[in-house]
Structures are given as C-alpha cells and as structure tokens.
C-alpha cells in the first residue's frame, strides 16, 4: 500500500490548486463582467479598453502570460525603478484570472445580447435609465444564460492551474512531479492525480449547477 503515503503531499498540492482555482475564477468573473459590460458601453474609451483586453488575453497563450507576469514584469519594473516582483501565487492568480476573464467577457457580452428587444422596450417605456435596465432587467435575465458557459470556463481554469507548477508553485501538478521523481512510481502517481483533478472538476461543475438552479428559479416555474 505504497500509494497511501503519496496522498499527504498530493493533498497538500490539491489544496493549493483549489485555492488558485477559487481566487482566479472569482477574479476572472469580475473581469468578465467589467469587460463584457464595457464592450457594450456607450462610452467609447471603455469599449476600446475592453476590446483590447479581450483580444490581447485571448490572442496569447496562458503560459506566455504567466511567464511574462512572473519573469518579464519584474525586469520591466527594474528598468523604471519599481519593484514589480510578484509572489508566485499572485502571479498565478493574476495570469489565470486575466486569461479566464477575457473568455468570460465574451460570454457576458453574448448573454446580454440575448436579452430580447421586447424586454428592453418594456424597460424604456417604464422610463428605467440604461443603467437600471442593465442591472435590474438585462443582467438578471442574462446570468442564468451565461452560467453553463461560465461553468465550462471554471473547469477549464481548474485544469489550467497545472501550468503554475512551471513557476514553482506547489500545486497538485507540482507535488505530483515531486512524488514521481522521488518514488519513480509514475503509473500510480499519475493515476491518483488524474482522479483528483477529475474529482475536483466534478465538485466544481456541481457547484455551478446549484448556482444555476438558484439564480434561474423563475425559469423553471410552471403554471
């Protein structure tokens, strides 16, 4: 029963992975809404800023973004005399959050676009301001539409966290590599890691499903 002894370090890594996923998904969600709403703003600098953010972070790979934040940013900071060295956790959360936020922004934009013209006309006829219409009519109707796509992004994000092991962050992938190096028992270690990622993904998807059910309750009522 060798493998039981692997569980300690692997669990330690899994805990880091969970935290990374949690923080970066929350950051990504905030960025998704900011940029997704920004892209439809009536203020053009906000539209441009949102579009640039989305294009840059969707157009480059997460790995490059991570390395840039962790290795290049401090050098750039050096050049102008500011200390921009980031803690690996901060760099990881930032890179993951910025990346997932760029994809999420498109989900938010699409969700808002799916709100029917008739709803917007009803809001206008009642003299809601554009801002009130966004927060009270459009978003509450669009969020249940967005959640399945957000769920996929969150699971994607969980899987992407494995990349942060490349900046020596002790996540699940990193610990797995350590244990494997130490024991040379690749088959067992990788099987355990696979199962652990899969378990976390299941829990995450379940949580999103619950959220979906609670915010979209009005969609399932019947006569």
């Amino acid at each position, binding site marked *: 029963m060798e493998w039981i002894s692997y569980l300690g370090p692997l669990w330690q890594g899994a805990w880091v992975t969970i935290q990374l996923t949690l923080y970066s998904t929350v950051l990504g969600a905030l960025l998704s809404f900011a940029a997704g709403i920004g892209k439809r703003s009536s203020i053009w600098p906000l539209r441009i800023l949102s579009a640039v953010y989305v294009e840059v972070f969707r157009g480059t790979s997460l790995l490059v973004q991570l390395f840039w934040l962790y290795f290049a940013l401090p050098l750039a900071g050096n050049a102008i005399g500011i200390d921009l060295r980031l803690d690996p956790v901060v760099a990881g959360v930032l890179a993951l959050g910025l990346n997932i936020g760029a994809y999420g922004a498109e989900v938010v934009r699409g969700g808002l676009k799916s709100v029917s013209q008739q709803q917007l006309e009803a809001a206008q*006829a009642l003299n809601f301001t554009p801002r009130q219409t966004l927060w009270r009519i459009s978003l509450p109707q669009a969020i249940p539409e967005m959640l399945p796509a957000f769920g996929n992004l969150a699971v994607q994000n969980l899987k992407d966290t494995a990349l942060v092991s490349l900046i020596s962050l002790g996540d699940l992938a990193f610990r797995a590599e350590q244990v494997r190096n130490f024991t040379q028992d690749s088959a067992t270690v990788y099987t355990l890691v696979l199962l652990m990622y899969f378990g976390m993904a299941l829990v995450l998807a379940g949580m999103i499903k619950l959220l979906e059910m609670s915010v979209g309750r009005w969609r399932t009522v019947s006569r």
Partner: protein
Amino acid sequence: MSSQTPASPDQTPARPLVRFSKVTKRYGEHTVLDDLDLDVAAGEKVTIIGPSGSGKSTVLRILMTLETLTDGLIEIDGEPLWHERRGDQLKPASEAHLRKMRGQLGMVFQQFNLFPHMSVQRNLTEAPRQVLGLSRKEAQSRATELLERVGLADHANKYPGQLSGGQQQRVGIARALMMRPRVMLFDEPTSALDPELVGEVLHVIRTLADEHDLTVLMVTHEMSFARRFSDRVCFFDKGRIHEQGTPEQIFTDPREARTREFLRAVLEPDV
C-alpha cells in the same frame, strides 16, 4: 389619478393632450407614416384600426419614444416630444427631455413584455420605486390596489410564467398604470391571447379607463370592443388616417370604399 388638463384660461377649445402634426416616418425608401395629423383630447378614447402594415404600431411606438420620427412634430399637452424649444427654435430632444416626456406615457404591449424574473408584485413596484422614487410602502399599496382592480390580488407572488396570457396582460396593464401616465397606449393588447381570454382583458381596460378617466390610444382588431369603447375610430391605410369618425359612423356608415372593404373583411371573413 387624474388625466385631465387644466382648462385653458382664455376658453379657446382645450388644446389636445396629444398632437401629431405632419409626422412622417421612413425606413429607407419605405414610407410608413405619411404626413400624419392626429389629435387626442384629454380623456378621449381613440382606437386605431386598419390593415396589417399600415403603420398603426409605428404611431404608438414613436409616441412611446421607442422609435424616432423622420419628420414632423409631436406634442404632449403643447410640449414637443421629440424636440426642445430653445428660444423660438426647435432642437432635437436631449435624453433628459425624452425621459421627462416619457413619464407621461404608459404602454401595454401585444406580447405583454412582463419581466419574467420578477414576481408579479415586483413587476409592478420596480419602476415606481426606481424611477419615481416611491417608498416601498407606497409602491406596495399602489400595487395591491391595482392588482385588486385587475382581479389578480391572489397572484402577487407568482412569476409571470405561472399565469395565463389573459392574467399576464392584466399585469401588463396594472404595471403601466402604476406610473400614473396621462396617456395610455395599447398595441393590440389581446391579439396574442386565446379567444376565451380576450374578454377578461378588454373588461379590465374598459373599467379602468372609465374609473381613471384615462386618455387612451389603442390599436385593436376587436371591432365590437372598439365600437363600444371608443369616442373616435381612426381607420389607417398606408400610413395615413384614411377615415375617422364616431364608432357609430365608421361601423354603420363608412364613407370610404377602403374602409368598407376592410370592415367587410374583418367582420364577415370569407371562408
């Protein structure tokens, strides 16, 4: 809830509450409203009938500011809707002006357009609270009263999806009345309903319009309702009022051939 305008001091005939003067609406080359003149007096009930595509909805939608006009002038109680007076010139209206004017109008839609994610109660109270700044208590007592009037007091906590079409439209009417508009616009309020639900909605429109002395501009295909309800019937064709008159005159003695043709088609459809 009074919709009466003060009598003009010089005792000239009271100016209309709503006035369209030479209003034109085009989509590209397509002219939808063609030099339209239309007056609605305070308290008057005017119905618009006419063939599909003749511009009936467009009249209401431009009035509700859901659609812009191409040319002409619309006034509400003497004040331009789509323009602002600067000195003796008319400038395109600012958003603030449109908001002020919009507050005098209420609209009921063919497809109800209730907010599906809000309870019936919140459908009614949301705009009065957010837009008019009513307190929760004020808004709720207004809602309770109106739900009572439209026969839905027991349904306040349901979602629109749990109601029949007729019930939803009654909520739609109550929701518009919550804002206490001076003019109520109805765009085919019963066209989306199963036939057996039409009566309850028309009944509610009729009793509320009487009770509140509402000024009403309504597009409808319910001819017998138009006949009993309206002070005046306008027959629309090709973006103009082709003929107008009392319901009595239009329905028993239409002067224009097009009006006769239309009425024959809707009243005695060939099978």
